[in-house]
C-alpha cells in the first residue's frame, strides 16, 4: 500500500493523503476557533458601541507596559515555533526540541505576566461580580468591560495552556525519534495552532489595552 507502512494509518493510501487530511483538519479546527472568539468579539463590539466612555475608562486601568511586553514575548514564541517546524522539516531532532523548549519558555513568561496582571486586578477590586468596586459614575458599565477582559483573555490563556501541553507531548515524541524529513505533521499542526493563538492576542491587545486610551 505505501512505502512507509509504519507512519501511515490504515485508512490512508499514502503519506501524502495523510498529511493533506491532517492539514485540512487543522485549518477546519482553526475555523471553529475563529467562530468561538468571533462570538466574544461580537459581544465586545456591541457593548463598546453602546458604552464607549466606559470601555475607555476600563482600558485605562490596564497595564499597557505589561501587555506590550507580553505582545513581544508572544511574537518571539511564534518565531521559535516556526523554527521548530523548520527543524522538523529538516529532520533535526535536537533543533526541534530546543526550539520547542524556547517556545514553552516564552509561553510561560506570557502566562506569568498575565497572572501578575490578574492579581493586580483582584487587589484593585476590578474583577466583575459582587466584589467589584470602582469610584465612577459609570462603574456598572466599566464592569462590563472587565467582564469581557476576563472572559476573552481567560479563554486565550486557556488556549495557551493547551498549546504548551501539546508542545510537551511533541518533545517526548521528538526525543523518541518519531519525526523525520517525511513525517513531521504533528509539529506543523501544533505550530499552526500556536500561531493562531498568537494572532488572537494581536487583536486582543489593541482592543483591550490601546483603543481610545489617552
Amino acid at each position, binding site marked *: 500500500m505505501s512505502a512507509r507502512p509504519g507512519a501511515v494509518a490504515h*485508512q490512508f493510501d499514502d503519506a501524502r493523503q495523510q498529511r493533506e*487530511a491532517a492539514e*485540512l483538519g487543522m485549518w477546519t479546527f482553526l475555523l471553529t476557533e475563529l*467562530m*468561538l472568539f468571533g462570538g466574544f468579539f461580537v459581544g465586545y463590539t456591541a*457593548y463598546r458601541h453602546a458604552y464607549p466612555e466606559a470601555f475607555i475608562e476600563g482600558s485605562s486601568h490596564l497595564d499597557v507596559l505589561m501587555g506590550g511586553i507580553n505582545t513581544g514575548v508572544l511574537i518571539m514564541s511564534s518565531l521559535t515555533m516556526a523554527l521548530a517546524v523548520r527543524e522538523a522539516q529538516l529532520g533535526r531532532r535536537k533543533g526541534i526540541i530546543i526550539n520547542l523548549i524556547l517556545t514553552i519558555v516564552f509561553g510561560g513568561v506570557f502566562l506569568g505576566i498575565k497572572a501578575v496582571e490578574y492579581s493586580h486586578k483582584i487587589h484593585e477590586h476590578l474583577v466583575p461580580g459582587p466584589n467589584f468596586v470602582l469610584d465612577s459614575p459609570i462603574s456598572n458599565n466599566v464592569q462590563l468591560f472587565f*467582564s*469581557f477582559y476576563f*472572559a476573552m483573555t481567560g*479563554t486565550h490563556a486557556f488556549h495557551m495552556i493547551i498549546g504548551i501541553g501539546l508542545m510537551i507531548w511533541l518533545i517526548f515524541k521528538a526525543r523518541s525519534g518519531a519525526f523525520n524529513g517525511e513525517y513531521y505533521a504533528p509539529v506543523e499542526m501544533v505550530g499552526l495552532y500556536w500561531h493562531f493563538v498568537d494572532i488572537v492576542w494581536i487583536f486582543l491587545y489593541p482592543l483591550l489595552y490601546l483603543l481610545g486610551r489617552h
Partner: protein
Amino acid sequence: MSALTGEDAPPQAPRQHYLNVTYGVRSWLLTLDHKRIGLLYLASITVFFLLGGMFAVMIRAELVTPAGDLLQAETYNKMFTMHGLVMVFFFLIPSIPAALGNFLIPLMIGARDLAFPRLNLLSWYVFIVGGLFTLFAVVQGGVDTGWTFYTPYSSTYSNSAVAATAVGVFITGFSSVLTGLNFIVTIHKMRAPGLTWFRLPLFVWAHYATSLIMVLGTPVLTAAVVLVALEHLLGIGIFDPKLGGDPVLFQHLFWFYSHPAVYIMILPSMGVVSEVISCFSRKRIFGYKVIAFSSLAIAVLGFLVWGHHMFVSGQSVYAGMIFSFLSFFVAIPSAIKVFNWTATLYKGSISYDTPMMYAMGFIGLFTIGGLTGLFLASLAVDVHVHDTYFVVAHFHYIMVGGALMGYMAAIHFWWPKISGRMYPEGWGRFSALVIFIGFNLTFFPQFILGYLGMPRRYHAYPDEFQVLNVMSTAGATILGVGYLIPLIYLIWSMRYGPRAGSNPWKAKGLEWETTSPPPTENFLTTPLVTEEAYAYAAPDVEEQEGARVG
C-alpha cells in the same frame, strides 16, 4: 451486477464482518471502526429519544385537562425544558449524522474509515459525558428555562440546575464539531478513485453542508453558553441589564447557532430522501446538481436568518424586515428540493416499501412545516402567533415530520446493510402508517390552537381549547406506539430476520457493493467509480449493467 452482489445466493456460511470480528464490551468501547462507533451513537441516541419521549408523555398527559392538575407549573416548565434539551441536543442533532452518517459516509465514498478514527471515538465519549451532565441536572431537580436558556431566566432569576445543563450542552457541542470536522476532511480527501464531487451521493452532499454548519455554528453557541455560565456562577453581568448588559445579545448569539441547527437536523434527512426516492422510483434523481447546491445554499443562507426568532424581542424594525426577507429567501432552496423529488417520481416505477413510505411522509409533512414557516417569517403574522402553539406545531412538522421521518426512512433503508438482516416489511409499513396518522393527529390541532391564541409553555388553558388538546394527546399516544413497534421488530430482526444479501433494494451506490454486514475494512479492494450516482436504468437494462468494478 446482481451476480456479484449475490442477493439470490443461498444463505451464506458465517463469514467475518465488522460485527463478529471481535467480541466483548471492550472491543466496542475502544473500537476505532466508524461502523461500530455509528452503532454506539445509534444505541445512545435511542436511549435519549426514549427519555425525551417520556418528558413529552408528561406534557401531553398534563394537557388533557384545562386545569393544571397533574403537574405543578414549575414541574411542567421543567418537563418541556428537558424535552426540548434532550430531543434537540442529544437526539436530533446527532441522529442521522453521528449514527448513520458515521456508518455510511466512508462506505459511500469507498474509504476504509473516516480520516480521524480516534477523533471519531473521542466525539462519542464527549457526547456521552455531555449527556451525563444533563442527566445529572435532571437528578438535581431539572431545568426550567426552556431549551433556549434565555437570560435572565438562566442567569439572574434562575432557580434550577442551569449550570450543569449548560456544561452538558457546552460539552456535547465539541462532539458535534469533531464529527463535522471529520466528515469535511473525509469527504474532501478520502474519496475512491473516480468518485468526483458530482458523482457523490446526495446523502454525502447533504452531510457536507451539515458539517459546515456544525463547524461554523457550534462554537458560537459555545461562546454564548460560556458567557451565561460565567454570569450564573461568578455573577459577572454580560447579559445583565443592571450593569448595562443586554439580554437580547444572548438571543442573537443563541439563535446564530440554533437557527442553523434546524438545518443540522433537516439537511441529513433531505439527503436520505434523495437516496430513497431515487431508489424506489428506479430513476435517476431529477436535477442532481441543483439538489447538491441547494444543500450548500441552505447551509449558507441559514446563517443569515436568525433574527426571525426575535421579531418581538425589541430588535430594530429594519433588522426585522431584513431577517423576514432573508427567511423567505431560504425557503427557495428547500422548495427546489421538494420540486426535484416530485419530478423524480414522475414516470418512475414506484414501489412503496417502508423507507419509501417514510420518504413520502417526509415530503408532505416537511412541505407543511416549511410553508407555515413562511407565515412565521412574515412580521405581522408572527406578532399574532408568536409564542403560541402555532410555532410549536410548525417546528414539530419540521423536526418530527421532517427530520425524524427521514431518520426512520434511513434506519429502514440501511438496516439490511447495518445488521445484515431484513426487518419484517409488513410491520414496517404498518408502523409507518401509524406514525404518520399519530403525528398529524398530534400536531395539526396545535396549528389551530395556536391560531386561536393558546400560548405555549403553560400547564393550564381555558376550557374551550380542551377538545383540540385531547385530540393532540390521543395522537401523541398513537405516535408513541408507532415508535415502539420499530424498536421491537428491529431488535427482533437482528437475530431472526431473514438474511439480506449485499443489495436487497437493488440500489445504486458503493455501500451496496460490499457485503452486508460489511467487513471491518469496508471493501476488500478499493472500488473504482466509473459512473454517476443514481444510474438507475430500465429494469432489463439494469441486469446487464456492471459499470462499477468492485
